């Protein structure tokens, strides 16, 4: 890691995804085709407000798609990863592996 070029993978890490809560959200959405708000809230352990805030940021980045609907007169939010989000997540995982492998080799 002493040479300047070796820092490239670290600089390449997507900061939006690197935040633990958002990483959890994306990972859970990556393994399913779609999920609703309650499922994601249970899986990540995030509060409704916290989850909502992170979902907003991910939607803004174009990584997830949020569909709001009504089921039996109750609001229901469906979520899924966009193709852009899927690619970004894969890229993030690859970058992290490179960084960690680099650290271990050093």
């Amino acid at each position: 890691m002493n040479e300047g070029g070796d820092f490239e993978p670290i600089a390449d890490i997507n900061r939006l995804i690197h935040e633990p809560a958002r990483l959890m959200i994306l990972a859970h959405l990556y393994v399913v085709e779609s999920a609703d708000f309650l499922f994601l809230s249970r899986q990540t352990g995030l509060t409704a407000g916290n989850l909502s805030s992170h979902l907003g940021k991910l939607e803004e980045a174009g990584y997830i798609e949020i569909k709001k609907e009504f089921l039996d007169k109750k609001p229901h939010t469906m979520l899924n990863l966009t193709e852009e989000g899927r690619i970004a997540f894969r890229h993030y995982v690859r970058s992290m592996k490179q960084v960690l492998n680099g650290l271990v080799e050093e």
Partner: protein
Amino acid sequence: MEKSISEDNLREMEQKAYRESMQDGLTEIFLGILLIGMGTLFAVKISAAFAVLFMLFAPRILEKLKRKYTYPRMGYMKLHSDPPGKTARGIFSYMLLVVIVMATVVFIVFGDFSADMLYRLTPTFMGAMLAGALTYLVGKSGDHRYYGIAVFGLVAGIVLSIYRFESMWTGLVVYFFLMGSCFTGLGVVRFSYFLQKYPIQEEVTDE
């Protein structure tokens, strides 16, 4: 919460999601009803229309029940599904393998392969098919308890094939009723436990 994301982590997450979706026991109940229905079909020689109607309506009824009882408690998620062609090819290949293995074993042991013997071996065939389906479920869910049911189903099939019933169909009928009752009972227990453990979470909202 912070942990590295590897292929294994993602696989475990997918398996956990699948396990959670199966926690309600409704799938076991429906499988049990299907098996008991098949047993009844063979026992009283009713029309196969029951099986066709059940196959047609069961997924819709199951989805309605899940909407009423499961999703308000666990949330909804849809897993990535395998391409239908791949699933069909997998089932067909496995079925062919079971037939070849059974035919080889029967020929080696008895040196004969009559139609009567073929009928009597249907519980073993059903047990092997059920074991294959349950092994697939272990892979999807990571829940190794399905292996236990798979072994029980296979052993029950072999025992009912060996036992000399008067009618060649009796073994199969008993097998359907036995496994159907087991699955229905297991499903009812899991469903009751599920309703008690997970209350409806109406308060959770994203607004």
